[in-house]
């Protein structure tokens, strides 16, 4: 089985890092995975995204037209990617910055106030990791256990002191009711 994800947000929200953690989690789980960023004449404050494809077999294509799951941290990303979600797929949105609209009836919606939760934890910088926790709650294919190991691996020795906060961020959504 193959599943693909698009993660998108403002430049600076840590979306590429979130993608790196997610891809590492799949790698640690022993799956085949690819990570591909949008790259180009990007600027701070512009939108940034990356695509992750995970497969039990060899990954068929790194860069695809449509996606099974979209994780969007800002309104522009919601507007841009809501139409690229496959019928039956899911869009997971940061409701702090994305208004609750449901323009299509053939996809699933998950809204969670990710930036708000991150602020309550003490830093809006962990919005990206909070969002991965939401993603794990919304999708069976993403394992929270492997995400935890991936956070530890990606932050590593150099940023060891940030691991506890990020692990907390990963679990933060468990206390919030998803809508």
């Amino acid at each position, binding site marked *: 089985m193959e599943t693909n994800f698009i993660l998108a947000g403002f430049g600076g929200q840590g979306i590429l890092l979130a993608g790196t953690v997610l*891809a590492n989690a799949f790698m640690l789980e022993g799956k085949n995975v690819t990570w*591909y*960023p949008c790259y180009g004449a990007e600027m701070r404050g512009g939108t940034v995204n990356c695509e992750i494809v995970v497969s039990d077999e060899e990954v068929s*294509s790194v860069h695809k037209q449509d996606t099974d799951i979209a994780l969007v941290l800002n309104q522009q990303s919601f507007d841009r990617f809501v139409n690229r979600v496959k019928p039956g797929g899911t869009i997971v949105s940061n409701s702090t910055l994305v208004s609750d609209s449901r323009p299509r009836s053939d996809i699933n919606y998950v809204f969670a106030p990710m930036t708000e939760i991150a602020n309550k934890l003490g830093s809006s910088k962990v919005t990206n990791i909070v969002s991965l926790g939401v993603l794990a709650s919304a999708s069976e294919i993403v394992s929270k256990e492997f995400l935890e190991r991936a956070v530890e691996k990606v932050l590593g020795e150099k940023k060891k002191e940030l691991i506890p906060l990020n692990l907390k961020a990963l679990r933060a959504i468990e206390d919030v009711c998803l809508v």
Partner: protein
Amino acid sequence: MVNEKVLIKGNYAIAQAAVNAGCQCYFGYPITPQTEIGEYLSGKMQELGRGYVCAESELAAINMVMGAVSTGVKAMTSSSSCAVALMQEALSYAASDELPVVLVNVMRTGPGLGYIYPAQGDYNQAVYGGGNGDYKIIVLAPSTVQECIDLTYRAFYLAQKYRNPVILLADGLLGQMMEPASFGEYPYPEVDVSSWALTGAKNRDARSIYSVAREEKKQIQHIYDLHKKFDVITQNETTFEEFNIEDADIILTVFGSMTRNIKAAMNVLRKKGLKVGVFRPITLSPFPHKRINELASRGKDFIVVEMNMGQMFKDVKFAVEGKVNVDLVNRPCGEWLSVEEIVSSVEKIVEGRKQYAASV
């Protein structure tokens, strides 16, 4: 530990593999989509006490590599399409000088300045070269991040083994993407360069490396010798990969990072009942003409899929010697052809061939 899988970008994988291969000097000038190679090495080489120069231009960078490898050490530069164009003169000199230059080209869109999107438009530039004279370069085309590592190792080895420039022809998608890969250890023996390297003439006669023989007879012989050497390279080093070739009626031929999409398309087409195989040259130069000709002799048609206007297409056509059909599925640049697009293009070609066969 060395066999542990890490999630790594193609560009970083190439850079670290160069370090593992014993690359002593890196000279380069930044350009998207390969800048991470220089970025990574700027820190790493300093850490290891090796050489790193952010050159004033691409022209300077490749000439610095020529200088460094003349002394027998391993050295490389990396760049992308329009900037590799600036290095063509030096490649012609390096081939004639028989210098083990390693050049990484992470292809972007051309012609001219082009754009930073991935493309495969430098096949001709790499394989046939933009420099003057009768020279040949070894060209290796990785298709995955793991192969970025493996073929970087091989590039350093082949360059010294045959004293010939080697181009690692990657592309923007491969340079920018991450996937799990492991480095292992540099798998090749060290090549003895003591018979030719310019290491100072203490206790021996002075040596020089020239690109020209200055006498007509010697110059003629020099060119014959270069080509004889490449015949040996062709014999020993031509490599390719095949999938489901044995029972295939149609062989999709592809190089580089498009291979993934082609293999997926092959699986879809097989499910639909078409006997499709995949053939992938790993060395674009030397090109596996002989193997393609053998397959053509067995009546297998070819469809070349590439992200350019049909560059490898011509080599495949040449190789089959008119024995079978060769068609092209392509796009000049931008988003890689999707699996669905490849499947429907192949189906259209097969249908067209059927109708033609029925009409004659």
